Every structure is written in C-alpha cells, then in structure tokens.
C-alpha cells in the first residue's frame, strides 16, 4: 500500500517536473508528437478476397496522421538551403557568369557554377545534359548557377545578384523544322535527330496497291508536366572522409547513384543515396536533377544542404511528356480490313535526350495498335528543340500513339460507313497473332474485352 502511494507521488512529481520543463522550452524545440494508442490493423486490411473489396495501404495511417516524413520535412543541424538560377532564355551562348555580388549577400555561404563540376553531364541513355549549363543554354529552364544560403529567402535574393552575359542563338521550337538539314544544330551534331527507329513488315507498296481506300491524317499531342504534389527535393551531406550522403526524392536510386558518382568523379562506394517516401513520381523523378550540385555545395560549406524545387522550377526545368507529331497513312479494303499502314512519328525531345530513346522505342512498337496489319512501315525520330526536355512519364509514348491510331480508326469507320466497334473487331489481334515486331501473342483477350465492355455500358443502345 505504502509503495503504491510512493509510486503515485513519484509520478506526480515527474509530471510536474515535465510541466516545468515544457515551460522552459524554446518555442523552436520540437513538440512531443502524440500518436493514438489504438494502433491495430484496420479491419479493412484483414479481408481476404481481393476483387470487389476495398484495398488499403499499410502506410495510409501515417499519411493520414501527417507523420510521413518527406524530404522537405527533414532537418539536419546546421542545414543550409540551395536555390538554382534558371537561364530564362531559350538558346544562348554564355559569355560570362559573375557570382561575386551574390557571394557578398547576407547569409550566402557558397555559390557554384557549371565549370566547377568535375563531369558536367548526365543522362540515362545519352550523357548530353549539363547539371549547370556552362557554355550554352539550351532551354529557358536550364540551371546556370546555384547559391547556398542560411535561409531559403536569402538564397533566392542572392540569385538576383548573379550577373550573366548571354549571346543569343537561334531558337528552334518546332520539331519538324528542327529535322530539316538547314536547321540550327542545337548540340553541334550533324543533325538534330538523335534517335531513330524503324519497323518494316510485309510489302507496304503492294499493300497500298491492293487497298480500295487510302486514308491520311496527321495527329499532334502537347507537352504535359507531371506536377507531382511534392516538388523534387534532396539533402546532401559531404562528410569529412569524402563520402557523400544524399537523401533524395529520386525514384530510381541505383541509376541515380551511378550518375552521381560519375558526375562527381567518385568511386560509387563513396556515394550513399537514401530514398524516402516520394510525394508522387509519375516518371518525373526517374533521374538526377540537383543532387551533385548540392553535394558540391555541401563540400564547399561543410554543412548539410537542402534543395527543394519551387513550383516554377518544377514546371520549367523538370522533364515533361513528349509532344508527338504522328503522320498516319492507312490502306483499307471495302470490307474494312486494314491492308497496309505507314506511320511516321516525330518525337519532340526538347533540349536533352533524357528518356526519349526508350519512349521512342515503345511508341514505335505500339504505333500500329492492337490490330493485325500485314504490311507495315513505321519510321520514328527523336529530335532536339530548344524547349524544356521531355522524359519518362506514365505510358512511355503509348498514350500519344493510342490517341492517334484510335482517332484514325474512328475517322475511317465514319468514312466507310462501318460501325466503329465492327471495324475494330474485324482487325483486332487474335490468339497467336504476331505483334509488329514479330512477337507471337498469347492469351489475347482484346475481342472479348471489347465485346463485354460495349455490352456492359450499352454501346448498342447508345448507337441507336
């Protein structure tokens, strides 16, 4: 009994001590964060049959409590903030960069320009993109200099003090113009075309000769930005032993690690990349952006450096979905069978390659659609222009060509007076059909899917 009282007294004393402690705390000291006690598995997660049931995510609770830590929610002692100066001019030669005024600004601890980076180029297939442009700016969102300062506001203020002299170069905004022989060569190559793919199947000339009707149309799509809710963010620390630790919102950390090691000229075992929860990727966070820059700023200042893109950075300097120009020519029989198809794809790659090669390949293979076409010819080109570079985004080129071949199908159905569903069923892949690249397809359900779907949503009733 006596012991109980003692324990109670002790608890009370501790509680009162804790209260005093709370009063003494500086407001900037983190709050003890309260977690609810009832942390059992949600009943919705215990169900077994998956189809037709609600699905939950194991991390859903922490998201809902606001306890998930994204990069911007992490702070390290002594951490400073980096911001990147964007060119704001589409195509220009850099005559000089003067950061001396910026370095005198209050709070500024270091600046970085392209020529200070050991290997100033990166990219998943072609290493044609500089981390910070040092001789030529190839699109308005190109970074030209970086500043690290005590607060984000100080870093932003210092960016205005960076003086850069440009000599303007001709702009090339249209991919079709960029393909021409006399177009300005953005990367000093022989041509602005940096990747091509071709698929040839059957005899296209004979196919067109046998056709009763020939349809031609050009389709175009626009640039699309991923707009992940969380902007690109990373924190870099260069430690005293010459090792780099990067917390990053990167999606492909292994590829990123290799790229970072390459640009910093470090053996890969000196680079540690820690991936955290990503606040939306959709393909836009598949390659490095500022990671080596902040690593070098950390080396210069001896402090952890954080860089979070502003929403403006996100729009002008991160990758986007490729705009395509798609020229379709299809030969049809009277009955609505596709006899031959010729496709020419021009993929506007923007200023740098990024994932354009991969995208081009996918688009090329899928450009004929899920249809049996005996005579096929696809030519595809990826072209440099002086616009924001384009890269990976959900579907990798498939949505663009799907828009084109299905629109083309509808056009032809209307012209021939055949029902849109009928024309698709007549040409769709069957079991054992070969894809444009010769892959024999198994478990093909495109017909069943079309039939079931149209039956379910009342296609026939709607047609009447």
């Amino acid at each position, binding site marked *: 009994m006596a012991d109980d009282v003692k324990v109670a007294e002790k608890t009370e004393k501790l509680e009162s001590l804790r209260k005093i402690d709370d009063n003494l705390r500086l*407001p*900037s*000291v*983190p*709050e003890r*964060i*309260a*977690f*609810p*006690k*009832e942390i059992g598995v*949600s*009943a*919705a997660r215990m169900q077994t049959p998956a189809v037709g049931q*609600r*699905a*939950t*995510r194991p*991390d*859903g*609770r*922490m*998201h*809902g*409590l*606001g*306890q*998930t*830590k*994204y990069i*911007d*929610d992490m*702070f390290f002692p002594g951490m400073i903030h980096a911001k990147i100066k964007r060119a704001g001019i589409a195509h220009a030669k850099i005559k000089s960069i003067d950061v001396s005024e910026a370095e005198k600004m209050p709070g500024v601890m270091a600046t970085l320009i392209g020529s200070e980076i050991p290997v100033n180029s990166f990219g998943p297939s072609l290493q044609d993109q500089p981390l910070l442009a040092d001789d030529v700016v190839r699109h308005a969102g190109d970074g030209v200099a970086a500043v690290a300062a005590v607060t984000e*506001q100080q870093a932003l203020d210092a960016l205005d003090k960076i003086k850069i002299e440009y000599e303007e170069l001709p702009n090339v905004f249209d991919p079709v113009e960029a393909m021409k022989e006399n177009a300005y060569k953005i990367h000093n190559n022989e041509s602005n075309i940096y990747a091509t793919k071709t698929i040839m199947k059957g005899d296209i000339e004979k196919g067109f000769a046998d056709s009763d009707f020939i349809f031609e149309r050009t389709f175009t799509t626009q640039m699309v930005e*991923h*707009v*992940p*809710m*969380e*902007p690109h963010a990373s924190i870099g620390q260069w430690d005293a032993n010459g090792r780099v630790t990067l917390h990053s919102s990167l999606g492909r950390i292994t590829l990123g690690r290799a790229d970072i090691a390459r640009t910093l000229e470090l053996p890969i075992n000196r680079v540690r990349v820690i991936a955290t*929860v*990503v*606040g*939306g*990727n*959709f393909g836009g966070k598949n390659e490095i952006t500022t990671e080596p820059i902040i690593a070098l700023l950390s080396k210069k200042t001896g402090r952890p450096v954080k860089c*979070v893109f*502003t*929403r403006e950075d996100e729009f002008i300097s991160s990758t986007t979905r490729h705009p395509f120009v798609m020229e379709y020519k299809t030969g049809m029989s009277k009955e609505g069978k596709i006899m031959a198809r010729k496709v020419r794809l021009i993929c506007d790659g923007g200023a740098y390659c990024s994932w354009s090669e991969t995208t081009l390949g996918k688009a090329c293979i899928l450009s004929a659609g899920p249809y049996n076409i005996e005579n096929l010819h696809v030519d595809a080109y990826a072209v440099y222009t002086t616009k924001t570079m384009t890269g990976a985004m959900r579907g990798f080129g498939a949505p663009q060509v799907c828009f084109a071949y299905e629109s083309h199908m509808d056009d032809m159905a209307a012209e021939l007076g055949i029902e849109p569903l009928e024309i698709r069923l007549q040409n769709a892949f069957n079991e054992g059909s070969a894809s444009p690249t010769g892959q024999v397809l198994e478990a093909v359900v495109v017909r069943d899917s079309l039939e079931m779907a149209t039956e*379910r*949503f*009342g296609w026939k009733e709607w047609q009447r």
Partner: protein
Amino acid sequence: MTDIALIVNGENKTVSVPPETTLLKMLRENLNYTGSKLGCDVGDCGACTVLVDGLAVNACLILAAQAEGKEVLTIEGLSTLEKYHPIQKAFEDVAALQCGFCGPGMIMATKALIDQDQDLTRQEIKDALSGNLCRCTGYTKIIEGVVDAYQEITGKKIPATKPRVA
C-alpha cells in the same frame, strides 16, 4: 523579428519570426509541425490547409502575424492520444491516400466542411474540396472517404451514386 502569440493544437505558443514569414513556414520550421505541406506556395494546391478559428485556410497565403491570438489546428492536433479521428480512419480504410502528400490538407479541409454541420450532397463535397489537388487517386476514393467520415460523425446518410453497370 515579430513576436507572435497564438494557440496551436490547443497549446499556447509564442514564436519570434521575421515579419515576412508565412503561417506555413512558422508551423513547419519554428514549431516543427511538418504535417502541413508546401506544394505550390501560391495557394493552388491546398496541401498546406490548416484550420484558423475553425475555418480552412491555405497556410502558405497568410502571414504568421495574421494568426496572432487565433486558434490554429493542424493535422498533428486532429487525433488525440486516445482516439484516431473518424476522418483519418475513413481515409485509411478506403485507401484515399496514395503518396499521401495531399492528405493532411485534404483531411483538414474535410474537417472544416463537416464541422459546418450542414446537410451535404456528393456534389457539395466535391465543390468544398475543389481547393485541394491530388495527383494520384483521381479523387474517387477521397470523396468516398469524406462520405464515410461524414456519415460516421453526423449520423446522416448520403445516398450512393447509381452504379453505371446495369
């Protein structure tokens, strides 16, 4: 520096910040309530939504000094040690959050809506949440979560939408 006295999640706070500091920056950096997120910094995305005197506001659009003497509720103050908030539970149960970045703002906007204690329709829920963007879910699950939470809290029913499949 400006001294600001306010109540955050039921506790009295006094913070000294530069006058241009936004409420969001003060909550995240001075008080370490990192649940409210910075998405766009111009009031478009709603990831920073908090309640000031019961009203949903974009914390990136108001200055910390404007919250002087007011009562601020962030996502961290929604659940208690004893109880998980019904909105959070509903959002978890229907998997309304995927990457989760819009979640705290979405949940706070939902709380402000349900607290108004009005009869709601699905359309009204959609209108009320139009200031909160999400790029993962396509909103369907979020609206489902809000409907579940609304029914749980108020005991009222919102009729289910007619299924499209016959």
